[in-house]
């Protein structure tokens, strides 16, 4: 199939305004009759549902948590980018666009990224108007910090809880629409099937997670905002419930899945401590503003107390290898460097799978500055330390507390131990410029689409993209489809398509419950995660990927013969929910390996060991792989079909990414 990205005409800076001026509109009296379903209440879904409600559509919004405010976006820590140039350091929409395309290793669509950079400034305005308490300077104006992969300071933040504050903003807007009767919220509901009538999206089947009831919901269009799929690795920084089910249901109904193998491994997470481990905890990238990453130079020092290792015996390897960006290199680069150090046997900690993140220089620097502003002459070392720790506490207090609670070590005194962990998925449903999937009437927003981040996302850009999609892009672009639907009557949920979809959902649930095997859902999930981490993780090779595909197929077979799901279908049953999600992860895992195997190059988060430069850096193949790999479902047990969207770069010159 020929993929049409529907990129508007005109120079890149004018595409979005041209589009908006020409997009078809839906009259207010028609909007009221038009029903839109939004799956997800995170930044993307919450913002979209609220805005669609404000515009006058009849909206139904679904989430599996007990409240829309608990979507996984709540956990984002570090910040959100916007090209406001409040710091007067030379930022602009073009620079944000450039940084994002370069950071993504030239594997994203220019027009989308430019639009993202343009609307980024509106997001900050909107959030401040909603009462989001961003960090401020003493003069009362908004504060900024820097994030990896860029040389300007454009990240807005609310201490270490930026996602929480942004989501509470979207949740408040959503709550207002719920109160106004424009949005009907379905908490503790899980979408389990997409319903199509005559080739168009006409609704969903959802399970009420409290009663187990299977419900039919009709609509004129469905917007997925169901988040990322990092949990395919079992251990990740994602919330326990994050899953790929909505995406996989759509995929099986004809929505293409783009670049599934692009996974972001975040460099600064608390290392794994044991088999029982259920999730990994992120230590925000903002810490790399002030923390310096190092390992001992000598193997003899590996188990020494790090404070006793003198400066000259430490290898600040990021500063050494990448002098231009130092500790602020992008995530993929920092993660690979940490892995390389640990693989070389230079890792620290119990398992040897950790590097230090050290704040002592920052504490000293801030302490001296604070002593200076407070007019303390000749401050003692102790005084400096105390003042410096206060500054660090005000910036990262909650993260330091979290670290101490988990590891029982005080990071103000001993350097943190960190290691990379799965964090974000750049892949997702393929969407065109309008955020429409290959299925008419089905849209995808936020982390669940293949997004604007190419092969690697820069820090603080997911929140930006989620809110850009939800507040400013989708509510406009969906009008172009809905304008053609004003004569379509309300969906009849007794239509045979609904009956059949409901039956397939029920059959699937009964199948899971009746296997009554010997292994728990978690057993399978853990095994899948291990295959993925070892063979489709931070670095990959053809042989490993081929093995992984076979192993996953075998695991899937075993799952469907030997999983044990306790309880019944018509009650609150978390194990049943998990079973359905793991079944979808098993299918996704195989697809990710196929995609990774197909991409014979290294780009961003996708690092193929066969394709590297003599210095060990990622080696892209622009001639053969400057495309989006969009996978098409071909039916149960059949190999998926590869479709390509060729990427053209008119406004940026393709270069080897260098942070040296």
């Amino acid at each position, binding site marked *: 199939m020929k993929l049409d990205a529907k990129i508007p005409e005109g120079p890149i800076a004018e595409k979005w305004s041209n589009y908006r001026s020409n997009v078809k509109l839906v009259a207010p009296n028609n909007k009221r009759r038009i029903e839109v379903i939004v799956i997800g209440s995170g930044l993307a879904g919450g913002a979209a549902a609220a*805005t669609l409600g404000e515009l006058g559509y009849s909206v139904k919004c679904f989430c599996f*948590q007990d409240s829309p405010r608990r979507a996984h976006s709540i956990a984002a820590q570090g910040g959100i980018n916007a090209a406001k140039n409040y710091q007067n350091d030379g930022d602009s929409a073009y620079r944000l666009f450039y940084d994002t395309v370069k950071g993504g290793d030239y594997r994203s669509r220019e027009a989308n990224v430019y639009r993202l950079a343009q609307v980024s400034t509106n997001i900050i305005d*909107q959030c401040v108007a909603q009462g989001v308490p961003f960090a401020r300077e003493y003069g009362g*104006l908004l504060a900024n910090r820097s994030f990896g992969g860029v040389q300007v300071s454009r990240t807005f933040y609310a201490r270490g809880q930026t996602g929480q504050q942004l989501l509470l903003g979207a949740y408040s807007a959503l709550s207002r629409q719920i109160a106004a009767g424009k949005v009907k919220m379905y908490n503790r509901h899980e979408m389990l099937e997409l319903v199509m009538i005559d080739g168009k999206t006409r609704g969903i089947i959802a399970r009420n997670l409290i009663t187990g009831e299977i419900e039919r919901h009709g609509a004129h269009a469905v917007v997925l905002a169901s988040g990322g799929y990092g949990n395919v690795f079992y251990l990740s920084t994602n*919330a326990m419930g994050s899953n790929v089910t909505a995406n996989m249901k759509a995929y099986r109904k004809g929505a293409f899945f783009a670049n599934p193998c692009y996974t972001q491994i975040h460099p600064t997470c608390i290392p794994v401590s044991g088999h029982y481990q*259920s999730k990994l905890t992120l230590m925000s990238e903002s810490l790399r503003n002030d923390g310096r990453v190092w390992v001992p130079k000598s193997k003899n020092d590996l188990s020494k107390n790090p404070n006793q290792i003198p400066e000259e015996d430490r290898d600040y390897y990021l500063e050494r290898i990448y002098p231009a960006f130092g500790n602020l290199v992008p995530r993929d680069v920092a993660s690979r460097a940490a892995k390389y150090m640990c693989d070389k046997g230079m890792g620290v900690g119990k398992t040897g799978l950790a590097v230090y993140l050290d704040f002592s220089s920052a504490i000293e620097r801030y302490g001296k500055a604070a002593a200076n502003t407070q007019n303390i002459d000749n401050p003692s070392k102790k005084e400096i330390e105390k003042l410096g720790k206060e500054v660090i506490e005000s910036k990262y207090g909650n993260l330091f507390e979290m670290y101490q*609670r*988990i*590891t029982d070590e005080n990071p103000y005194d001993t350097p943190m131990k960190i290691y990379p962990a799965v964090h974000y998925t750049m892949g997702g449903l393929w969407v065109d410029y309008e955020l429409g999937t290959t299925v008419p009437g089905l849209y995808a927003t936020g982390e669940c689409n293949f997004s604007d981040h190419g092969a690697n996302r820069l820090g603080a850009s997911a929140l930006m993209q989620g809110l850009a999609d939800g507040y400013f892009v989708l509510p406009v672009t969906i009008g172009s489809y809905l304008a053609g639907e004003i004569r379509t009557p309300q969906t009849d949920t007794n239509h045979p398509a609904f009956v059949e979809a409901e039956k397939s959902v029920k059959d699937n649930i009964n199948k899971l419950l009746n296997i009554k095997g010997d292994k728990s859902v978690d057993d399978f999930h853990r095994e899948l995660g291990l295959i993925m981490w070892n063979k489709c993780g931070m670095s990959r090779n053809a042989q490993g990927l081929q093995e992984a595909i076979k192993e996953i197929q075998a695991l899937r077979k075993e799952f469907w013969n030997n999983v044990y799901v306790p309880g019944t279908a018509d009650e609150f049953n978390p194990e049943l929910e998990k079973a359905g999600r793991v079944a979808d992860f098993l299918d996704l895992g195989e697809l990710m390996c196929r995609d990774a195997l197909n991409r014979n190059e290294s780009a961003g988060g996708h690092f193929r060991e066969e394709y590297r430069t003599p210095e060990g850096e990622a080696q892209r193949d622009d001639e053969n792989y400057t495309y989006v790999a969009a996978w098409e479902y071909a039916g149960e047990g059949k190999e998926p079909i590869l479709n390509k969207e060729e990427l053209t770069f008119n406004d940026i010159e393709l270069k080897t990414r260098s942070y040296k």
Partner: protein
Amino acid sequence: MKLTLKIWRQRNSNDKGKLETYPVDGITTDMSFLEMIDVLNQQLIKDKKDPVAFDHDCREGICGMCSMVINGRPHGPWEGTTTCQLHMRAFKDGDTVVIEPWRAASFPVIKDLVVDRTSFDKIIQAGGYISVNTGNAVDANSLPIDKTNAEDAFDAAACIGCGACVAACPNSSGMLFLGAKVSHLALLPQGEPEREKRVLNMMKTHDDEGFGGCTNTGACEAECPKGISLTNIARLNREYMRAAIGSEEEVR
């Protein structure tokens, strides 16, 4: 570590429910409390028994989903810590640990340790927002906000909506939660136009949803995992008095 767990089991909202005893073994100090429950549940599943249902998602202390009363204390023994961030270092070998759901008329039990907290959403829907449509905003820096006010607003906005304050309160009052939201918005200039209407409507919904009044016992503040302080209730009361006496706003 070996522990004896006494856990509240209740099949659904109609069931009466009771405490059941479960021994667990092989618990290490660096496990989180929920990972300890995972260990128990995996054992129950292996024995073909019904695992314990509990709410959780982020396991990072931010989503507000986890909610267990542990040895009589909402979120357990550590101060300023959610259930998911509590670690097994807090216990010793041989301990007996009693685990119950939030108990409050406004939070009915769904199953075992899972309760229904939609009453909190209804309080927010009654006015916990600023009425600004997407696209209506002016430039973010056009209105400087005093740093101290912004910080105080942040402190109040840090509430995760977990409901521990209600579970801790002898009156099952939701005033700390409500006070936090009212304070967050009252401290910001953007919240000013709807200030009176907001507090009146939110307070009314709080009462209608069956939450009790505040008698200043302070148990909420002591158990709140996010350090939401009682000054928020004081501010709520001031805002309420100011609105009830000084305004012509009608409560919806």
